[in-house]
């Protein structure tokens, strides 16, 4: 077994492999990669001689570097090899493909792969995603360096350690590590959405499946509707329901309303009854009206409650509710009587009643109001949320400023990737 330090795969492509007498066994065509600890390793070389393809085991090599590759076996010991889909081949399956750089939170293309010696094995240590990799593949890395030197600049290496790579191909996932998966889950959901919007829909669905449910739920709401539908309809109903359940009911309703009716029904049936009812209620409103935008998660207490009791209850309720800055005051018939801001609640005398400190002149809107009307009111009165009431003043839900923002200024990943 050969000892070696490091090299780039492009440096040994088409290089002759010699037998102990110095005769050519064939030329390097590809490398078979298998799972290894801690990193994937090379298990054999695929060499080609006059159209015949052979497999040369790593253990049969004795010199392996960018100047010379030689084996300690002769031509009669070579095993004929047939290209198949089972083996993972470095050049065929990794080179030139897209991968996710979990560290930088972006999609990159593999220009070259760096191998390093480790315990007498060759392990995949990093991928080259930079200009150097491209030039090396084209055989002009030196020339590039010379040109850069004229401009008194150094051409930097742009290597990503294999530890940070999240492959997109299902086949590659087998040899990938668990680290990048964790790292991806730690990314901001908006970054995950950006990554998904940059890869093909098939790859996006695979990538998404690997995410933790709560991360998935957050990332999903950042995506544009078509992609959301794609991903959810490609999933098992159980998992889809788990994710939908984690989302705020208004966003869940938006996604369900875009799904085919029977799929939406299936998912609704697998969601906990209470959540499903909330969503179903929201589904009955048109998407671009106050009713369609609102969420029915809000905090509401009776007018006769004391501030002390309200704060205690708030600590428990606030965990599950998205927008907590207003505490609504509703009577026994769910009629909206007033509102107390979180600040006023915290500053008020603990024994005061909510009805004493509440603001009764408050702006409300009917569920069928147009989204523009909603945004005008929110903007004019500088509100964080606007309560939606029916004709009898019953509080149905609230439209929050971030929902309105999303309608007026969709986040980057919701816009289409191609600009023309």
């Amino acid at each position, binding site marked *: 077994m050969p000892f070696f330090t490091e090299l780039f795969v492009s440096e040994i492509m088409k290089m002759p492999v010699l037998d102990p007498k110095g005769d050519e066994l064939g030329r390097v065509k590809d490398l078979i990669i298998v799972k290894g600890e801690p990193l994937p390793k090379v298990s054999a070389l695929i060499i080609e001689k006059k159209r015949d393809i052979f497999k040369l085991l790593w253990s049969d090599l004795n010199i392996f570097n960018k100047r010379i590759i030689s084996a300690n076996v002769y031509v009669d010991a070579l095993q004929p090899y047939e290209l198949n*889909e089972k083996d993972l081949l470095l050049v065929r399956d990794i*080179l*030139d*493909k*897209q991968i996710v750089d979990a560290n930088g939170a*972006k999609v*990159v*293309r*593999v*220009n070259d792969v760096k191998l390093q010696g480790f315990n007498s094995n060759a392990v995949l240590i990093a991928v080259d*995603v930079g200009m150097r990799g*491209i030039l090396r*593949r*084209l055989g002009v890395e030196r020339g590039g360096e010379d040109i850069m030197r004229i401009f008194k600049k150094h051409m930097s290496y742009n290597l990503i350690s294999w530890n940070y790579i999240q492959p997109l191909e299902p086949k590659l996932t087998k040899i990938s590590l668990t680290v990048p998966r964790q790292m991806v889950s730690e990314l901001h959901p908006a970054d995950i959405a950006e990554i998904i919007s940059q890869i*093909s*829909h*098939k*790859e996006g669905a695979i990538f998404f499946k690997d995410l933790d449910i709560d991360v998935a739920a957050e990332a999903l709401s950042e995506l544009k509707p*078509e*992609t959301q539908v*794609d991903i959810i309809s490609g999933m098992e109903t159980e998992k889809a329901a788990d994710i939908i359940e984690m989302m705020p009911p208004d966003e869940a309703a938006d996604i369900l309303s875009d799904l*085919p*009716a029977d799929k939406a029904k299936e998912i609704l049936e697998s969601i906990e009854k209470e959540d499903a009812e909330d969503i179903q209620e929201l589904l009955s409103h048109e998407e671009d009206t106050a009713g369609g935008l609102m969420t029915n998660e809000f905090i509401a207490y009776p007018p006769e409650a004391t501030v002390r009791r309200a704060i205690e209850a708030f600590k428990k309720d606030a965990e599950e509710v998205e927008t907590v800055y207003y505490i609504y005051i509703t009577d026994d018939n769910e009629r909206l009587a007033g509102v107390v801001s979180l600040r006023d609640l915290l500053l008020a005398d603990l024994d005061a009643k909510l009805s004493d400190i509440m603001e009764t002149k408050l702006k409300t809107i009917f569920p069928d109001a147009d989204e523009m009307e909603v945004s005008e009111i929110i903007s004019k009165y500088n509100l964080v949320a606007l309560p939606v009431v029916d004709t009898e003043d019953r509080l149905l839900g609230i439209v929050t400023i971030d929902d309105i923002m999303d309608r007026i200024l969709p986040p*980057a990943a919701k*816009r*289409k*990737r*191609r*600009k*023309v």
Partner: protein
Amino acid sequence: VSRWRKIIIFLSIMGPGIITANIDNDASGITTYSVAGARFGYSLLWILIPTTIALVVIQEMVARMGAVTGKGLSDLIRENYGIRSTFFMMAALFTANFGTTVAEFAGWAASMQILGFSKYLMVPLGALFIWILVIKGSYRSVERILLFACLLYFGYVLSGFMAKPDWKEVFYRTFVPQMKWNSEFVLLSIAIIGTTITPWMQFYLQSSIAEKGIKKEEYKVSRLDVFVGCGITDIIAFFIIVTCATTLFPHGVKIHEASEAAMALRPLAGNYAFLIFAVSLANAALLGAIIVPLATSYYICEAMGWERGVNKTFKEAPQFMGIYTFMIVIAALLILIPGAPLVFLMVMSSVLNGLLLPFVLLYALSLVNNKKIMGDYVNPRAYNVISWGTVGVLSLLAIFFVITLLLPMGVGYG
């Protein structure tokens, strides 16, 4: 699913084919059609039918690849044929498309001049407008402007009717092929095909379909979109030829450029025809000048794995913004420098496009027949005969076109 939603889904999938088709009729396309009509009357009209068929065959395959793989053509070429082929293809595509961008700006300058504006004012303004639109503008504003611009093409249909052609003669010439064995006639017929089926369009169409997230299940709708788009391309071409053939040909007016066609139309067909031709040319040229540089930077960055996107900054996507800015700035400058080798550049670009087309088509055809990539959506055997035939004929014509361009024959087109 309500009926409204169904219509909306349909409309949301429609688009890439039609937009691609419209952009295909850019400044050089309009020039070719005008010259063909003025020089040979209705007798070149029949070429449009085989052109449409070839266009449909090619675009259908490319669109299918986009829907099935969700990837662009440059992505697929990079992933399956390695970096070397991709690099040279991208280098050639860049040069060819740069020439095309110059041609678009030339068309814009010419149309502005005949409308009475100074090109020294309008070319920098146009370039700045395009640049800012993409650098600062949002996707929505770009899309709205593009869709509106596509509508303007129907001006040509109007001018065709206004010219009051002899419809019987027009249809006869359209459906009964006629060949004249003189070099100009042959060259112009090849030029019509060459300007309609270009390499960059294939990249553009496949990416737009992939970006739109159209899936193989929705592909049937997408195919209709492509068919309609191909139809529109050639209907516009048809009316340009008819207009010039009806008004200019009988008077023996010789033209070399689309702007000359517009000028020549004024005394013969009136002010409206002149205005339609001038404004449509300006529109087509500007549209091309937006799309060609933008599309080019997209494919190159996609293939090379560089950061890309209009909502990125110069710092985030230096290569993308760099290529885009370079193409626009240098092309606009070349138009303004007196004595710049414009004709040479445009001929070079046609030559490169002609050389590139066979390669692009061969890659596309071998990719679309790759079971690993396309699964059940590979070409059916019978269809393959048609596609190989089309690709073969187109490649031969492209090579022939290149040879004639390189030979100093002094044909009045280039």
